[in-house]
């Protein structure tokens, strides 16, 4: 569960974002909006990479407004650079188990299971630079699996993937979200990508969530004029 209450953030350059948001456990919310509107900033705020000047960031019923990113019940998959290039696939995944990960039999078993789940069984000793964009994203997902946190944040996870890889990745994430009842936030520049993945959409404009609703309603019949402009729908 995610609760943001009156969360204010000041960014260099004078921009000020304000968020109020509630996402129930097991809900998959897509986040859309123009470039620079504050979509990724929202995810970074929840993950703890940014700290608010005021307001409450409550995750799983606990106030995490000031807590360390590693202590939050959150895993995040970035658009790119999700892996340490100098480490092999197994260690990249294993660091999700513990920062002091050692290749013991039990730990390696968990790593291999997670890699099997994302269709990368046998990739343990592969070097990161030898992976394709889709494989790298799936390794990041495998790490999120072993981290086993109830909230998953995806920051434009499809941006570096081709159409067929996007479909595969969407199916994989969707299955994982439903099975583990994850609370999930996905940022995307392409709203249509979110139809198979999300229950609801939130529209962010100028650092504030201005519209929210079921995916179909948001994409076809929202009365929010900014959203209609953003989607390219004609005015009524």
């Amino acid at each position, binding site marked *: 569960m995610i609760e943001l209450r009156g969360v204010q953030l000041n960014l260099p350059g004078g921009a000020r974002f304000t968020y109020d948001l509630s996402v129930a456990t097991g809900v998959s919310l897509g986040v859309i909006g123009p470039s620079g509107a504050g979509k990724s900033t929202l995810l970074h705020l929840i*993950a703890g990479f940014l700290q608010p000047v005021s307001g409450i960031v409550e995750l799983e019923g606990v106030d995490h407004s000031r807590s360390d990113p590693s202590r939050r019940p959150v895993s995040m998959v970035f658009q790119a*650079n999700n892996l340490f290039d100098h480490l092999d696939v197994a260690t990249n995944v294993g660091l999700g188990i513990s920062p002091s990960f050692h290749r013991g039999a039990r730990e390696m078993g968990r790593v291999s299971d997670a890699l099997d789940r994302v269709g990368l069984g046998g990739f343990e000793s592969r070097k990161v630079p030898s992976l394709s964009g889709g494989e790298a994203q799936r390794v990041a997902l495998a790490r999120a699996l072993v981290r086993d946190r109830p909230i998953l944040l995806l920051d434009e996870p499809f941006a570096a993937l081709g159409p067929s890889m996007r479909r595969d990745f969407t199916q994989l994430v969707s299955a994982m979200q439903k099975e583990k009842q994850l609370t999930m936030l996905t940022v995307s520049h392409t709203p249509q990508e979110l139809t198979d993945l999300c229950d609801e959409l939130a529209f962010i404009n100028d650092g504030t969530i201005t519209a929210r609703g079921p995916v179909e309603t948001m994409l076809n019949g929202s009365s929010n004029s900014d959203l209609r402009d953003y989607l390219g729908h004609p005015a009524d």
Partner: protein
Amino acid sequence: MAGCNEPIRPETNVMNRAALPGLLVVLGFGSFILLALVLLFLAGDGLPLERLAGRQVRAILTFTLTQSLLSTGLSIAGALPLAVLLYRHRAFVGRDTLVRLLALPLALPPLVAVLGILEIWGRSGVVSAGLQSLGFDVRLDVFGLQGVLLAHVFFNLPLAARLMLAHLERQPATTFRLADQLGLVGWARFTRVEWPLLRPSLGGVAGLIMMLCLGSFTIVLTLGGGPRAATFEVAIYQALRFDFAPSLAALYTLIQLVLAGTLLFLLSVVGGAPQDRAGALPEEAGFTRPVPVWGVGLLILTTLFLLAPLAALVVGGLVAEWGRLIQNPRLWSAAMTSGVIAACAGLVAVATAYALLVARSRGFGANGIAKHLFEAGYGAVGSAVLAVPPIVLGAGWFLALRGVPAQTLLAGGLVMLVNALMALPFVLRVMAPAFAASERRYGALSSSLGLTGWRRFVRVDLPVLARPFAVALAFALVLSVGDLGAAAIFGAYDLVTLPVLILNLMGSYRTGDAAGVAFLLGVFVFALIAMAERSHKVLG
């Protein structure tokens, strides 16, 4: 097909008129360097090669390599935890000031820094006085290897820290966010993330510092403490100025060229010197942990180590006998000489760099042999000063001036040219990225409008690049006004610049006056740096 923002290159593989000034620069400076070497090697009665195995050469070689290796090792050992600390903690109060403080020694004339170091670490310095007041009967002695190491670490630890920090900050922001999210802290973060990221850059950092220490002249001359603690550059100077033995100077030059050439080759093998862009990480209200106790200690020690000599310089400058000093005509004469030489050297360096960049960008077809030859010449002239240091250039031309009329004027011209050549790598580093950006943006448009040559300079390059030109000029002025290398050699022809005046005052034990002149020089240099920094910030 090239994008619309790509500069248009001539379709032919030959060169055009835009290449001419750059070609003249390459040929002119190339001849200047080669002639200096030829003059030096022809001046004596042949190379005394039998002395290669002699005790003196062995002693100089041992000292040169020992101090270079130790200075490099100590600088990197101190810089590594500092860079990691500054990378991990991006929001503590004073971080930006400390990162800027790390750049200060790079701009400080070596002789000025030596005076500050003596004030702190010398026999009558602050540390010795402090120890004595605590009851220890100790007087520190900074003359010899220990003083040279201290001064080299003062200059190179901040440089190494900035280079390593810049290397870490060039990594994607997700790298440290990922490490934060995975709870990688302390030793685990160092071994898993920071060390593997830093390791590939260490060869380049070490090579660059070793190169600087190998060619160290001013510090070794003033703190070396005699023949047992001399590098080859100092030995060349002493052979010419005190023994007048050109053959011996030529032999030392040969060894110095071999050492520097070998190191340059090794440096190119490990990937060259890294870029210094510390502070490039975007500022944001990011997550940050409190600085650990060892980190606070390290930050305090580093700040004291760097600031104490500067503070001593200020104090020394303020208590100098200014009433007497400003009535000394030698001071004003030296200031005038330094100012004229630095201004001319700066202008020559900037004009030269512009000619080289224009030729490189607009003068040749995409793949012709002429372009490849010019690229080789551009690289050689742009970094010549690393392989052929100012003292070697000065030595060759010093010999050519014997018996020539108007020696002082000619010596001034030669020092100016050596200083311009010395500043060229730094000037190119400032101007090249701005020039390339301007070419990407306006290259095609200018070509389509037929703007070439002088018209392009006046209509496009000068207005667009005025600020980078000014920043580059400021850097060249700073380097030139603080240089002692070439000026020390030509001091024999009554050419007295401010650094030469300070050296003479130190030699006659008038340290109060030397501190006063050093203070003046320091204020001038920092004013220039402050102006350049402000412009650089605007440049982004």
